[in-house]
Structures are given as C-alpha cells and as structure tokens.
C-alpha cells in the first residue's frame, strides 16, 4: 500500500481539499475525479486516500455526512469546514509559490 511516488508529500491533502471544495463528494468519486481531471496522470490509491480523509477529518478541516448517491446506495460524502476552506487557501498559496519557484529553477537550468 505504498503511497504513489509521483505525488509530492502533502500534495494529496491539497488535491482532496480542492476536489471537495465545490460540492460534497464521496471517497471513490474523489479518487475518480482526481484521476479524470489530471488526465489519468494522478492515480490515488485507496491505501492513501482513506487514511488521508480520516486524518483531515480529525484535524477538523473536512466533515462527512452519510446520504444516498444517485445510484441509490448509501455513502459518506465529504465537504469542507470553515477551517478547511482557510486551510485550502493557505495550501493553494503555498503550492503556487512552490510550483512557480520550481518552474523558475527548471527554466533557468
């Protein structure tokens, strides 16, 4: 159950927070959406996804509620808390600084 090596440490949290920022999403759909949006580049393993979701929930950034999906099955939907939104903004800022910095270095070289 190793973590995907192509995912930077801490990036998974950002991806999850971003994914559920628009509407409540359940676990499987989070993984699927990340995969789709990244054109099948980012594959989120279940072994990383669920511990991450539980960690975020315990830090109070996301909350969950149990309700029915369109297909009529019961699933846990995750959404951002107020603190979660703040955290997302913070992590986005950090990410942009980091990626532009990395971009600068890469172009220079």
């Amino acid at each position: 159950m190793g973590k995907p090596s192509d995912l930077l440490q801490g990036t998974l949290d950002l991806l999850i927070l971003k994914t559920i920022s628009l509407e409540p999403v359940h676990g499987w759909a989070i993984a699927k959406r990340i995969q789709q949006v990244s054109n099948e580049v980012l594959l989120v393993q279940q072994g990383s996804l669920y511990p991450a979701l539980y960690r975020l929930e315990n830090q109070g950034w996301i909350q969950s509620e149990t309700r029915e999906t369109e297909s009529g099955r019961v699933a846990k939907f995750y959404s951002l808390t107020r603190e979660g939104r703040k955290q997302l903004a913070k992590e986005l800022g950090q990410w942009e600084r980091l990626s532009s910095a990395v971009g600068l270095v890469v172009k220079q070289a």
Partner: protein
Amino acid sequence: MLWWRRLQLRIRSLTERDRLERELDQELVFHLAEQKADYERQAMTAAEAEFRARREFGALGSLAEQCRDQRHTRWIEDLLTDARFAIRGLRQSPGFTWAAVATIALGLGANLALFSTAYRVLFRPLPYADPDQLLEIAGPIAGVGPATVLRQMAKQVEWAGYLPNVERNAQLGGGALRLRTAAATWNLAGVLGVQPAMGRWFEEREESAGRHRVAVISQRMWRERFSSDPGVLGRRILLDEEPYEIIGVMPAWFTFPAAGTELWVPIRYDPADISYLWGSYNLLPIGRLSNGGSMEAAQAELSGLIQRIRPMFPWRMPDQWGVGAALVRHQTALVSNARPKLIALAAASLFLLIIACGNVSNLLLARWIRREREFATREALGAGRGRLLRQLVTENLVLAGVGGVAGIAVALGLLPVLPGLVPDLPRLDGLALEPRAAVLVLFAMGMTFGVLSLVPMFRTFLLGARSVSTARMTLSRRPARVSLSLAGFQLALATALLIGAGLMARTLWRLDNVDSGIRAPGVLTATVSAGPSRCATAARCRAFVEDLTATLGGVAGVQSVNWSNGTPLVKRQSAMSVAVQDHPRPPGAPAFVLWHLTATPGYFPALGIPLRSGRLFTESDTARALPVAIISESTAQRFWPDGSAIGKTIRPVSGKVWRTVVGVVADVAHYSLAGFPSWVDGVQYVPLNQSMPGSGNVVQLSIFLQGAVTAGVLEGALRKSFPDVVLSGLAPLQRVRRESVADRRSTMWLLSGLASMGLLLGSVGVYGILTQRFAQRTREIGIRLALGATTGSVAVTVLREALVVAAMGSVVGISAAIVLTRYLRSLLFGVAEHDLAAFLAGPVVLIVTALLAAALPGLRAARVDPATVLRAE
C-alpha cells in the same frame, strides 16, 4: 475553536466507537462496489471486475487499521484493552487476586485510619484564629494570684486564666445533675479569638464577686437540655444553688479546655480573699503572643515576671518555684501525652503496610515468574517489550486500584470505631479521612511497591527471555534470592512489631499485678455531691453525711457505707503542703507535700487496708477530740525510719493545728498504679469528722459501699429525702482500677493487633515463597531422593531455608526495635525499654511461626516420589 472541534471528534471516536467502525466498513465496501461497477462499465465480466477491484484494494483490515490510527485515540483504547485483559487475568486466578486485594485493603485501611487520626490529633490546626500564637506555661505556674499578675504585667503576651474540669451540681427544671464546667477570666474569649454563636461572652465587671452571675453554655447543652430554645438567653440556671443567667451559647466546635465542657462562668475575683488568690485554685494561664512578638522575648519576660511573683505570695515560696517554667504552644501542650502513643501506633501500622506490600509484591513476583514463558511466547509472536511491560503495569494498577478502594472502605469502617479503641486521646471529635494522611500512606505504599515489585520485575524483564527456554530446569538464583530477602525483610518488621507488643503486654501484666494496697472485692464507689447549703457549717455538714449514711445504709443489699474525699486511682489531685515534726525546712526550701485524704472509721477495713501499727480512726475522733492522722507505711519510713512515727505531729503549712499520728497503715496506690508523682513525699489520712467541708463549700465526697446494689436503686433512695444530691459514676473499685490503665491497655491491644497481623502476613509470605520454591525444585528434589537422600534430609533443606530467613529477619528486627522502642518509653511501666524477655520472646515467636509456615512445604518435599518426577521429564 479548531481545538474544540478536534476534542469533540476525539471524544466521539471513543464514545461512538462501534458506529464509527460500522461507517468505516460501509465506506470501504461502498468504494469496492463502485470500483467494481466502474470496471464493469469498462466491459469486464463481473468476476473479473470483482477480482481486479479487490486486488487494487489490498487487505481491507489493514487499511481500516490505518484509518483508525488517524483518530489518535489508539493509546486510550490500548489502555482499556490492557485493563480488560488485566481484569480477565485477575479473575482467572481468584486466589491470588483475593489474597492481594485483601492484603492491600487491610494494610491500607489500617494506615489510612491511624494516620488520619494521628494527623487530626497532633497536627490539625486548632480551630482558633492564629492558633500558633496561643501559649501555655509548662511548669507549676498556676493559681489566681500568679495568673492575675501575668495578666496585668505582661506586655509580650496577653494572658487569660481558666480553671478546667470544675464539676458542679446544676438544677434544671426539677432534677439535679452533674455538669462539667470551666471558670475563666473574662478575656479568655478574646485571647482564644472566639465569639459565642448566640448572645455574648462575659465582661470585665462580671469577674468581681457580688455581681449577678452569668454563664455561657455549650451548643450541645443548648440543644439537649434546652431543646434548642431560641429564647434561652436570659434564662436562669442554678449552679450549686446559686442562680446564673445564661448570656451566651458557644459554637458547636468550641470544646475548650476539654471535650465535654458544658458551661463556662467567669472566675469570681475578690482581691481581699487571700486563700482564693494564692490558695489551691489552679487557675491555668493561657496566652496569646502579641502581634509581632517573638517567643524569645515572651520567654524572657515570663522568667522576669516569675521572679517578681514569687515574693508576692503571703507565705514563703520555695526558691525553686517557677524556675525553668517554659512557654509552649497550646497545641503542643494539649497533645503532649498522646504524641508518643500515636507515633508508636502510626509507625507500627506503617510496618504492617510495608509487610502487606511485601506480601503482595511476592505474590506478583511469583505470578510473574509463572508467566515468564507466556510473555516469552508473546514476545516471540511480535508483541513489543514496552507493550508487554505496559500490560504488567496496568495489571498492577488495576490491582492497586481495587485494593485501594477496598482499603478506603476498611478505613471508613475503622474510623468510627477508633475513638472507642483509644478513648484516652484528646481531639477525637469529627474524625474523618485526612487527605494529607492519604497522600502520605499512598506515597509509602507506592514506594514500597515500586521498590519491591517493579525492580525485580524490570531486572528479569530486561535480562530477557533468553533464559526462558531453560526456565523449566532451574530457576535462576536471583529472583529466589530477591523473594527470600523480601521475606526476611517482612519478618524483620514483624519482629519489631512483636517486640513492641511484647513490651506493652509486659507493662500491662506488671500493672495488673501491682499491689494497689486495696483488697476490696465487691466494693462499689461513686461520687456524691450536693450544694453548699448542706454544709453551711461543719456541724450541718456532719449531720448531712450521717443522714446520707443512714439512708444509703438502709438500702437493701448495702452492708456498709464509708466516705473519703477521693477515689483511689482516678488521678484527682489531693495534696497538702505540711510541716513535719523533727524535719524543719530551711527558709526558701519547698515544704513537704503529703497526699491528703479524709476517711471514716470503717474506710480501712472496707477497702482492705491493713493496719501496721497504732490504731485506726474511731467514732470518738470527733471535731472536739484531739486532731489525729494516720500515715502510710512508706511515709513513716520516710520521716521516722527508726519506727517512732506514732505520736509525732504534722501541720498544714497554711494552718496552725498540729495533728498527732495515731496509726500507720499499709501503702495504697492512690494516684496511679505506677505510683505517686515525684513531688509527693507521703500520704496522710485524717478523720472525716475532723475535716468536714464547712463555710458554705460545695460538698463532693467519694462513697464506698460494700454490697451489691444498682445506681437506680441508690438514686431512688436518695430522691425522697435528698433531691438535690447527685450520685454519679457508680462502679466497682476493680473497674476504676482497670480504667486507670486504659491508655496502656488500648495501646497494647492495638499494637498486639498490628503485630499479629504482621506476623500472620509475614508467615503467609514465607509459606508462599517456600511453596513456590518447592514447586520449582520438585525435579531437583526428585533427583536427590533418587540418588539416595533421605526424606528427612530433604525436609530439613526446606526448613533450613525458613530458619535462615527467620533468623536473619529477627536480627534486623531486633536492631530496629532497639532504636524504635524509645517511643514507647513513656507508656512502659516496670519494664525496661530493652527488656530481655520481650526482646527474646518476639524473635522466638517469629521463628517458631516461620518454621510452622515452612512445615507444609517441607512435608510435601519429603513426600516427593522420585519415580513420578523422573518419569515426568
């Protein structure tokens, strides 16, 4: 508010664990199903989709475990698991658990109760404001005169005076009763810093004689005798026939100067009355250090004042009077008698606790050694050492917790009983568990446990499981030596306890065999008291006593009635300073002090006091006849060793009449079985008829009745013609004697109880260890027997081990006792502090008990069948 949310989440993780678990399962199953559906949409067969989804998903359990870890409540859950596991483990060995819990509970309970008592009696601050500032004088500085001078002249200390324990006859709505009262100077309330709960305390002007009389009553008296009547202030009460107005009710906690004081009146200060001012009224000074004053300055001032008081007496006082009088804190003085006893008992109970802890530690150790293989197996299966250790600690904590709760229950059960066991202690009101004592006891217990159980466990634990595979063969010597020395230590403490109990038993035996000089089986004694009008003149008084004698002598069952001014062995002081013929005292030397008793002619025969020479009193020794006296044998020896006592004369220092000695009787222990105070030079008896209380004094006499009769019958006889007479405390003389040594008796019983429990626990410990050693050595014994050892020699091996342990324990215990018995010194009588018999008997009892405890394992060892043992290999 993020932390709040997080806290809520943690709590939810713990409380709604099952629901969360179900949700987690559902979620993962849902994910699996979605993935499978997704694969099916990608045109896979159902089986293929299922297989692939499952393969990607991996082990469900492991994933769930990772998710659970994110809750950060794992350690609590582990703890609960450990606790559950520990409880299950303890329930599996009920014998061990019961033994351990009962031992802890007894040891802890006894200590909690005794330490709480010791703290509350010795150290709990008195309920007054700034109690540390309250001072008393250790030494004979008492009396209205000296106290008044101190009051008027001292600057460093504000002095007040009180007369404790004045018994008075009170008349309240018909019946007469005996009250314990105290008289006090008006400023006592100010010095103590107390206020009445209702009404007021006395004022300065109320001290003078002639004023109308006022009294302040106790809360209890208000409740019990006045039914908590809110209109009690202003009501009248007759005390020794004089009316007093009740002006105040004290708070319930106020028990000055001693528990049971029901009423306080002002002293009656008449500057013209020399005998009142300088006579035998033992007004005791109590003072409060002035603000910012120091003990040193106050002491210096006191010493100076005593030099000025001495010449103020109307007669010459000894030059040594008051020299060395020292200031002591009131609290220290109050408990000075109880201190050695409480310290001895607390130390003894602490010993018991340590023995108890030793036993539990031994049980734990034995249990742990038995489980060494279990732990090795679990370690081999991957349990972390820390985790295993934590489980052990949890198990001990559960044990200690259960034992602790049981111990508190034991202590709560003991506390109400304790005042009955040690009735002679002061300040026993409101006994309760004392948190400080509890902390101390728990600390002692924790230390003992820590040292005795965790250290050897850690050692064996850290030495590791490598020896476990060979553990079947022989046990490594180390734990054996640890448990044997542990048992030796327990036995040492038990020895010290036994020696202490032995000393007290010898003391009591000595006291019970002291010849008090009284041989009066079946003699009853009581205190008879009446108001001053009965004795307005000596003649009336005489007639009154004659009437009483006739009335009580006429009661069925009474054979004879005799009187005296005191009952033997109640420690009531009755001393007189005298001048003795042939023994002039130089000026400034203290006068001789004789114990002064009045007696009726039948007193000596009734009490079985034999006449040694001369004659006893007769009916003709009347007030008009020659004043006579009888002295005791040792008094005659002291003053006239040549045997010429008869015909010599004695005179009170403050009087003019010389009494002629007409008889010498055998010695009687009037003060206590341990003898008279050192300042008493002898005993004199005078005829009651020649020494009637007169001039309006209160009558208080001791009556001695031969015969069998109850207090009710006597009171019934008195009620008709003497409604104002109170007869109190009717008891056989033997009981008075027994009660006079009640403090030693209670100490002995408590110490003996603690010692026998210590001995019992100690020998149970020895038995346990030897049994366990035997179990481990069965194979060795079998081989020895097979090689030709006799069964006797095998049994001896086991017994020898017990003997060595007990002997070493005895040696250590004797050394401890040599140091510790000094705390018993003040309680001992007729027994040296290092009494050989007690110091021999203790160890002998211990060694014999230890050998008896070892006998069973020894017998078992002798009965081992070598064939069975060897076949079992």
